[in-house]
């Protein structure tokens, strides 16, 4: 049994403590917006927030998240009205879309620290989040648009 706080809700799941948080979220809690891409912290598809920091859920034993606040794309403040989500939609950043929730969760922690990031700052911050559709230039545009509050 593991007790967690996910998207502001306390939850208890019947999983071994070393189960990666990713599978607890996806299969035990049905929060499938967090994706599996590599399982070894090499792609960023599973990015979620742990106490506000971007972490790779595939490489984090669920027990380490116990007592801390986990936020997934489903719990991103504002939902469809979140400035990043709005910019993502306006720019049409997603192609296949599979990587994009991880991209948004990663981007959110950049804007929290650097409200007006340059292209270079964005590329450096987003470098661990792969997009096989190669929507990188659109991701830069969407982050800049969200930063401008457009």
């Amino acid at each position, binding site marked *: 049994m593991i007790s967690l706080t996910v998207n502001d809700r306390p939850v208890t799941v019947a999983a071994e403590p070393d189960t990666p948080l990713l*599978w607890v979220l996806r299969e035990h809690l049905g929060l499938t917006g967090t994706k599996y891409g590599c399982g070894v912290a090499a792609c960023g598809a599973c990015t979620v927030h742990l106490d506000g920091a971007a972490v790779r859920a595939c490489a984090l034993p669920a027990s380490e998240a116990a007592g801390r606040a986990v936020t997934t794309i489903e719990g991103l403040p504002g939902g469809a009205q979140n400035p990043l989500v709005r910019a993502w*939609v306006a720019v*049409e950043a997603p192609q296949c879309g599979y990587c994009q929730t991880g991209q948004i969760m990663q981007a959110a922690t950049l804007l929290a620290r650097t409200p007006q990031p340059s292209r270079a700052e964005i590329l450096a911050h987003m470098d661990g989040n792969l*997009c096989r559709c190669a929507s990188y230039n659109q991701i830069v545009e969407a982050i800049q648009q969200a930063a401008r509050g457009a």
Partner: protein
Amino acid sequence: MSRTSTLGRRGVLAGATGLALAFAFRGPESAEAAGPAALDAPSLNAPALNAYVRIGPDGTITIQAPVPEMGQGSDTSLPLILAEELDADWSRVRIATAPVRPAFDSPIFRSQFVVASLSVRGYWMPLRIAGAQARRVLLEAVAARWGVPVAELTTEPSVVVHAASGRRISYGEVAAFATVPATLPEITPAALKPVSAFRLIGRDVPRHDVPAKALGQTVFAIDVRLPGMLHATVARSPGLGARPVSHNGAELLRRPGITHVIPLDQGVAIVGERIEAVLAARRALRVQWSPGEGPAHESDAALASYLTDARDTSRSGVTAGRAGEAAQAIAAAARVHTAEFATDYVYHAQMEPLACVASITAEGVEIWDGTQWPSQVRDEAARIAGVPAERVKVNMLTMGGGFGRRAAIDTSIETVHIAKAVGRPVKVMATREDDIANAHARPMTAHRIDVGLDAEGRITGWRHRLAADLVVPILYGRGRLDAQRGVHHIVTCHANVAQYDVPATLTEHVYREHGVRTAPWRGIGAGPNAFAVEAVIDDLARQARTDPLAYRMALLRDARAKAVLQAVGEMADWGRRREGTSLGIGFARLGLPQLGESLSATVAEVALDRAHGRIRVLRLWCAADIGLAVQPRNAMRQIEGSLLWGVSSALTERLTFRDGAVQQSNFTDYEVLRASDTPEVHVRLIRSGEMPLPAGELGLGTVAPAISNAVLAATGRRLNIMPFTPERVRAALAA
């Protein structure tokens, strides 16, 4: 496999449903086809006007998207084509995903099959006709009710207008009383809207699939969860034909949560209640495999033998294309230019690992799949489960990237086998490690090009010999290759130089078969072939002491090709010298000559770190002629994506085999393009004609030659083995 017989049966089905375009519009079939979708339609009594469209009394227009979305945007662009001819108010259109039924087959493939960037091109006429037909039904109903001639009626978005009396009636109101005639009105191409009257096609509308993707609400196959569902993963044998001989499954079955260990034709499946238990057992699985079809493949060593085959003109290959007498022209030439190229295997690396869900009940089979070939999944599932194809329901889910990998349906087939064996719904998911171990690679290639030139330096003959693995027999079965007289269109595409004014050309393909699993890969043969061809063009320009762009301009045959070249030269400011960087150019076609080819030219601005052999692509400019762009912004994004695939495959992507097995294991050692290596990209569309042409893979072939040509311009050295890894770059510079 039994692919040949399956294809044969489909042929019969297609024949029975009538001529190429007629099948979409038959009354009885439309009702049946629209069945499952109707369940969640806003209005259950919305009449189905034909298979593709129904209009509810509330004015909601539901249009079926006939192929699944994988990032290409067809979920929006295909329904938009129908809406244009229907004169629909786009804000009232609801897009549904079509069922997998012959009514929704592409006339090009006679199947619901998403490959070769041909969805828009293939469905263009069927959807326009379906839209025009639905509109005609509405007009006739209004004419009868108002007692006016149909010819006096016109439409505005979702409204029928009778100008003479000033009367107007909305489509929803018409739908409330209109009946669908037993025989739907015949629409001839002449009755379609003139392109100049389009108000949706050619103007960007928001992509239908995007908001859900940004919110994480899109359901990919890997996300499907059913009551009572088991989880499974499959260890695939290292090469084609290798089978499990023994395994430690009995031991794994003692683990809590593991329910089954199932030997498959070319794999072993582990099944259990919890994904984490299944993945842990997968790590502990040990399998002995029988020898596969090929000898234990060592790709590095084999590349040398591919080159030997490409070089050895005494070894005849399959003639994939021929015009004139190239061999004689080269033998008689004043001078012969010869060049050799090679490319490594590459992996699709789609971000969603392969996944599929199946459930078999007394009713039949239901499948939730992200597949590029839904019709084939349906037919194979029917065969495995022993039910008629009509009792297989395939839910076409969004794919987390396809790129050709999901044209192969190996995982779907295995999922149905596993579901049959366990008697419960099951989700099969590949780990990334297994996804790459089971890579269906783009073939490794070696190229030898000989160009004959006369005393004035004019090209007299061009021979391209290509040694490469095969894709066609693995994707379609041996029968298809035999039917094509051995011509392997996927690997040899665009190996000829038809765009250039060359009097005699010959393309020969020497088969190499090593039991490597292969599949189409974005751009298919154009990637390696355009690399070789466009590098040679630059070599020739250099020998002629002519600017490479001007050289191409003089050699290109048609005005459309010249226009893209001219445009890209302007975009890149080609003539301007740069400090510390250099420019290179590449040209590529996409498509089938009989259906229309799209054209592209790209300029790459490249910085070379000579000491480390590292190449950085700073900017790409691409001019593209895709005919009529249905959704210009999306088309540009697709082209940008394919250009960046070009960068990725030119610089880092490399799949190698040792002892018959893939050596790479994850994104840690199979490197795809990342954010920090992404160049700025500028795409300009050039409109030509009134027909949409392929876009999604266009441009990929232009990039590797543009990069190699830029390095040539800066150093005089040719990078001729792709990817251009730092070791290879240093070796080329030292040569």
